[in-house]
């Protein structure tokens, strides 16, 4: 079984070094490693973004990394954003940011009208679902990273 600890985003973000016990632990679940990586690619580098731009996806991810208090993830997404930017003052950006915060911190407060608000600001059904997947994926990613760090003896 190959040690994929250095081949994927999650391994890198969790600081998993090749040949370590943590790498061996990860290698017990090669399908989880593989489909976590392909999910990351589908979320941040889709062939068809449905109108939700790369910058919007990464900005949402950066916002979540900050909400979740994960400095390593925040650095990762700042770097991914690079010089791209969203117009933070636009109504669209504000509604997306509000949605990202609410679904991250209080998903039970979700209402149908929140999707209507996104739709009114120009998001297609595909973009709404894509945004939902970005939010849900980063919440998954931060928690897997936290568990891997704990297993590796780091905070």
């Amino acid at each position, binding site marked *: 079984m190959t040690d994929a600890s250095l081949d994927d985003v999650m391994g890198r973000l969790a600081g998993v070094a090749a040949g370590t016990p943590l790498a061996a632990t990860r290698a017990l679940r090669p399908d989880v490693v593989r*489909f976590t990586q392909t999910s990351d690619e*589908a979320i941040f580098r889709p062939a068809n973004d449905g109108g939700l731009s790369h910058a919007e996806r990464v900005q949402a991810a950066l916002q979540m990394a900050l909400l979740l208090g994960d400095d390593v993830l925040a650095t990762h997404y700042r770097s991914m954003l690079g010089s791209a930017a969203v117009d933070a003052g636009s109504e669209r950006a504000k509604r997306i940011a509000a949605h990202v915060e609410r679904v991250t911190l209080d998903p039970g407060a979700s209402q149908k009208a929140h999707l209507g608000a996104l739709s009114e600001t120009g998001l297609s059904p595909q973009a709404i679902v894509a945004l939902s*997947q970005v939010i849900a994926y980063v919440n998954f990613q931060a*928690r897997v990273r936290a568990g891997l760090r704990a297993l590796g003896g780091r905070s």
Partner: protein
Amino acid sequence: MSKPMRDFTKGELEWTPWITPVDLDSASAEQRDALKITPSNRAVGAYALVLAHDPESVRERSPLYNAVMFGPRGLPRADRELGAVVASRINGCAYCASVHAKRFVELAKEPDLMQRLYADGVGAKLDDARRAAIVAYAAKLTETPSAIGPADADALRAHGLSDGDILDLTHAVAMFAWANRLMQSLGASS
């Protein structure tokens, strides 16, 4: 959330989407492929058809979900389902909690534990110390992942969980951080 959740044993909950699902008959080849729909397998629910609006993400998420929750060996499936229920209870996803509570009871044959969790929340006093440690880890990972550290892994090791088991539990709980948010933000449980 500490108020009791609706009794999962009493009937099936339903999930009603807030956006129109993809119509199966007019789905694109990419959408059908992403959901693994074939002429002989068209039994796809509303949830999958909503996710099909963005086929690339659902294509990768489905096998990831299966690997996390059904991957052979490792942490017993009952414990993965328990992690899922804890996450769903905290996030307030009644639909997810009910489905996975039923799965836990089918697998573990411990309805009392699940009733206690439902009635008293994730701080419920459980007689089984190993299950209690799993619940505590799942709750902390769900609520404050940034506060998770080596001591949390050690607490599970003290109850006999291997590092692989702890990673399996982490994946299951994190997967429900994902699943709950999709269900809760794209539709309503009733």
